[in-house]
């Protein structure tokens, strides 16, 4: 008995070490980015990125916000597309999922397959790009930042499965009271599906917040850039850095411009909000993933 509890103890410790090490690896890069964004450029250039903070400097942030118009514009694009896009996506996803599972809806299976088929076969980037730019006018249009992510079959399946578990008697009694199907969806189904809504809001908001792909494909105008694409430009070229420094009136030579720390500061600015809120919303992601694991 004693050796057994001893074994258990040792195993617990072993497992905790494994998890601890992996959790550390997951979090470590974020820590590095955070501390290096508060380090002075000269320290980074001479000593490189380091594990421990060597000095404290807000120079990088000061430069980023010296002329904040670009950053604020990019933030605005990200936030507005995230809000509008998420609203559309959640509404479309739940409404479609709701209809597809209604057992008195005669063509539920056919329509489900109609949607599901798009997950099996995909036109690919080329026709989509030509179609969207030549015929739908996506070039430098806000539509390009909202529409491509506005409907997702997978989330529709999640919604469909969720509504399926809600007792059908709710629908029947509402019908008896003379409510039409849209009212039943809006007034009865949505209010009882709060966990589903929370999950779908989280997932869609994350997709919009992190989207750089559609911005890269369709947007060339600076004022329409989202935060992620702005960051991508910044990381990939020092041109963006120069632009900011020059527009902030500080004529600096390339060497003295704090490129490394500004990159890190911009990364913190672009990622910070999502990493700050997510620990509080984690449970909704967890719920969503588990709902999603149920087969459609």
């Amino acid at each position, binding site marked *: 008995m004693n050796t057994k509890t001893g074994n258990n103890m040792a195993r617990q410790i072993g497992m905790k070490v494994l998890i601890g090490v992996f959790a550390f690896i*997951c979090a470590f890069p974020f820590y590095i980015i955070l501390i290096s964004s508060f380090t002075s450029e000269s320290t980074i250039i001479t000593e490189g990125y380091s*594990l421990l903070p060597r000095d404290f400097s807000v120079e990088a942030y000061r430069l980023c916000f010296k002329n904040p118009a670009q950053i604020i514009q990019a933030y605005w694009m990200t936030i507005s597309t995230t809000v509008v896009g998420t609203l559309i996506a959640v509404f479309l996803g739940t409404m479609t999922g709701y209809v597809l599972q209604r057992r008195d809806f005669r063509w539920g299976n056919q329509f489900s397959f109609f949607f599901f088929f798009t997950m099996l076969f995909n036109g690919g980037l080329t026709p989509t790009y030509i179609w969207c730019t030549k015929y739908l006018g996506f070039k430098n249009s806000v539509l390009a930042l909202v529409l491509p992510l506005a409907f997702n079959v997978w989330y529709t399946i999640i919604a469909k499965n969720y509504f399926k578990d809600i007792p059908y008697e709710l629908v029947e009694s509402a019908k008896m009271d003379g409510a039409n199907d849209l009212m039943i*969806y809006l007034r009865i189904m949505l209010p009882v599906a709060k966990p589903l809504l929370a999950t779908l809001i989280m997932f869609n908001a994350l997709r919009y917040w992190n989207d750089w792909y559609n911005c890269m*494909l369709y947007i060339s105008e600076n004022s329409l850039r989202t935060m992620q694409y702005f960051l991508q430009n910044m*990381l990939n070229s020092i041109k963006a850095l120069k632009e900011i420094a020059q527009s902030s009136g500080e004529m600096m030579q390339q060497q003295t411009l704090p490129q490394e720390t500004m990159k890190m500061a911009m990364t913190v600015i672009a*990622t910070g909000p999502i*990493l700050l809120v997510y620990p509080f919303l984690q449970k909704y*992601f967890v719920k969503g993933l588990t709902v999603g694991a149920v087969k459609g």
Partner: protein
Amino acid sequence: MKRKKKKGSILKSIRDSRILLLMLAPAVVYVVIFHYIPMFGAVLAFKDFNYVDGILRSPWNGLQNFQYLILSRKLWPLTRNTLLYNLAFIVFGVIFQVTFAILLSEITGKWFKKISQTLMFMPYFISWVVVVAIVQSLFGYETGILNHILARFGVEGINIYANTGVWPYLLIGFRIWKDTGYGSIVYLASITSIDSSLYEAADVDGASFFQKVFHITLPSIKPTIIIMVLLSVGQIFRGDFGLFYQLVGSNANVLEVADIIDLFVYRSLLTSGDVGMSAAAGLYQSVLCFVTVVFCNWVIKKIDPEYTLF
């Protein structure tokens, strides 16, 4: 009481469910515009596209785009890379996710569990753009942490853009890094739903920890594993564009070991402007994907129809 199941005229059904049909309309229109029309747009692969004539009126050129694609000798390396990288992502992904799900389900200590899970979940929330910043700070040649640590031990630093051999490890590593926390939650949920009396009975019989894992836990979560793997295998010819585009991009050195179909399609379309070639490669990929997913589903149906996707 619902009398009409399959009975009744179509017209009556339409009238009865007109509001449901209206509610469905936006999504149907969306899917037609953003999925079905591009699907038919795949005919671009058989056309000599020019922007003025558009998709419909550009002249046909038979299989010429595919001929060029084959003559470029890129098709095989691209397909092989896409397949092998995805295979590695799937295999290592499942191993890591299942392992950490089991570990998380076994450990005691509420706070330790909560905090480590939160930390492991963190990489899921960032875009691949941010990972570029991470790569630069960790593996940058002059200022990266790795090379500074190596220098402290008197070891010469590694230039990842010259030693392209490290890239497969880097790409797989970052993908695992980003996916494990998120993926393990799916398996963890499936583990927590296992009937605990099974473990109690095993304890009475004196089963060891590993016996319980291999005879209770793994068989119980097998359906979840199968579904997750099947979903990824169905997409095995679709590369992770974000990962490869951001980390590899257009770096010619690295592309030699990490070029995938998706990057090629993108480059042909937007860098070299060869719409025909790009569409041909894209259609090739879509057909491969379609065949794979249908085949996977067929295999699963033979083994156990309960797990099929459609």
